[in-house]
């Protein structure tokens, strides 16, 4: 049996293609990102080693702070709306007795499977100042909120964040619904006998028992928000001005528009650290052990 499962040729044949491709296309670039962040590099020549000058420059760059700030705003908006609405919807659907459960689930989830380009183009038309859905609805209701949502540097980042929140709410809903269902019925039953209201039971029993699910949702939403790129690339190209820049956008522009690959790599390295920090904080503040009663 050991000979059968220890067949050297077979092992090499099975593992080498995956290991090789992964090492070259995924692992090597991770190392390169950190390494190249210490260089002044145009992507063509060898580049010059400049220690931490790229990082020094980042911390003096106003655009860097705009980018970090926008990443945080974006993460905050999508986290609150996706997890907040997702929670309410998941609990409501879980103890739904009326018809239409399947239709509701499909309705909530369908934007998740759309291409981000389609979603962003669609919302460009929805936000359109003259013919967009939102301004039309305001007009119809006789309200004077009509405005150009994406050309004001104050509202643009918020408007973009809501597009992402809209698209991926269904993802969090599906995760949370699975979480709600994994909590055994008898706990709720017991709480009911002890005289707890439904809301108390959810708050004190269900939600703490879903800590693992919430942890994943938080990590997913927050790192997703910090990484945001496609939404602003398609909808505003970082504008108006530089008001919707994020770290990834800064990296993209530095490397692929201006040709400063080292500077872009430094921005990418900061992004990794930011995501790592967020993940650590979430893990620190949400119980590591699964609650059992």
């Amino acid at each position, binding site marked *: 049996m050991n000979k059968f499962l220890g067949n050297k040729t077979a092992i090499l044949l099975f593992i080498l293609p995956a290991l090789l491709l992964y090492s070259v296309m*995924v692992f090597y670039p991770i190392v390169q990102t950190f390494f190249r962040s210490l260089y002044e590099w145009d992507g063509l020549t060898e580049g010059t080693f400049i220690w931490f000058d790229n990082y020094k420059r980042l911390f003096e760059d106003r655009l860097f702070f705009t980018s970090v700030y926008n990443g945080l705003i974006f993460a905050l908006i999508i986290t609150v709306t996706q997890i907040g609405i997702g929670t309410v919807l998941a609990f409501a659907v879980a103890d739904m007795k009326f018809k239409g459960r399947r239709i509701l689930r499909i*309705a909530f*989830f369908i934007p998740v499977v*759309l291409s981000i380009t389609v979603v962003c183009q669609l919302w460009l038309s929805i936000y359109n100042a003259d013919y967009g859905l939102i301004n039309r609805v305001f007009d119809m209701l006789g309200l004077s909120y009509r405005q150009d949502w994406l050309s004001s540097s104050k509202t643009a980042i918020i408007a973009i964040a809501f597009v992402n929140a809209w698209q991926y709410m269904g993802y969090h809903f599906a995760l949370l619904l699975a979480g709600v269902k994994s909590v055994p019925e008898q706990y709720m039953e017991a709480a009911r006998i002890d005289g707890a209201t439904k809301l108390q039971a959810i708050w004190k029993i269900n939600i703490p028992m879903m800590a693992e699910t919430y942890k994943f949702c938080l990590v997913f939403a927050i790192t997703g928000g910090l990484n945001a790129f496609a939404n602003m690339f398609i909808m505003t190209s970082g504008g108006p001005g530089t008001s919707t820049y994020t770290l990834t956008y800064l990296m993209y522009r530095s490397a692929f528009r201006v040709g400063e690959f080292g500077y872009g790599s430094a921005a990418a390295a900061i992004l990794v650290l930011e995501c790592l920090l967020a993940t650590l904080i979430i893990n620190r503040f949400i119980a590591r052990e699964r609650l059992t009663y």
Partner: protein
Amino acid sequence: MTWIMRMRKSRPGLPIFLWLYALISVYPLLWMIFYSFKNNDEIFVTNPFGPPATLRFENYVAAWSNYDVPVYFMNSLLVAIVTVLGALLLAVMFSYAAARLRWRFSKLAHTYILIGMFIPIQVIMIPLAILVRDLNLANTYGALMVPYIAFNISFASMVFYGFFRSIPIEMEESACIDGASIYRTFFSIMLPIIKPALATMVIFIFLNSWNEFTMAVILITKESLKTLPLGLLFFQGQFTTDWGAMGAAMTIASLPTVLIYVLFSEQVENALTVGSAVKG
């Protein structure tokens, strides 16, 4: 039960909220489909919200024949299919060796592959773009297929690894006693057992590569190689006056994934949320 019924009676707001959110979630899409059948007059003036008065299929004909939508569509399909096949094959072979075969560094290799799951693509875009250029892959199908396959290995391996670990060792023992080779065992016995996991990953990888944007926008500039997410990007500029054709192109681009979802909704939700068990 009666308790829940009572809650329901006292709180009619909840079902209303559910249906209201369903409307918010779906109406923008319906609106897009509606205007893909309308002319500008109807979109902008006479009937901006409702279903089209007549179905103007000429918008679809225009999107399909006047512009490069068929090219983008075929590119997306080709890239997605090759990515699915390539990533599945590599991941299933690797995870079988890591989970079942006996060699010294199997645990280490498995962990090494898993690192890839925690790295956002954005972070390695710069070295990846340089690499694709240096390997002479720039502006070929390989520029997308090779990185897409590499990127899906980590996640698929993790899923398959779990499945392979749960199979009793007697399966291989009896195959060995019956004189099957290790390859025969792998292809005729192990693969059929993990079919459900394979199906899940087909859906997952297909949807991901069909919709992938960030890598595509950086690695592909040639018009004839663009996938749908890229091709549609430039529609807004081209068609600022022709919303109907734009809507039609976007509807065509969404059709495959929406169809897959509606037909296999349970599996798609499971496939896309399968990572939650481990990733956090």
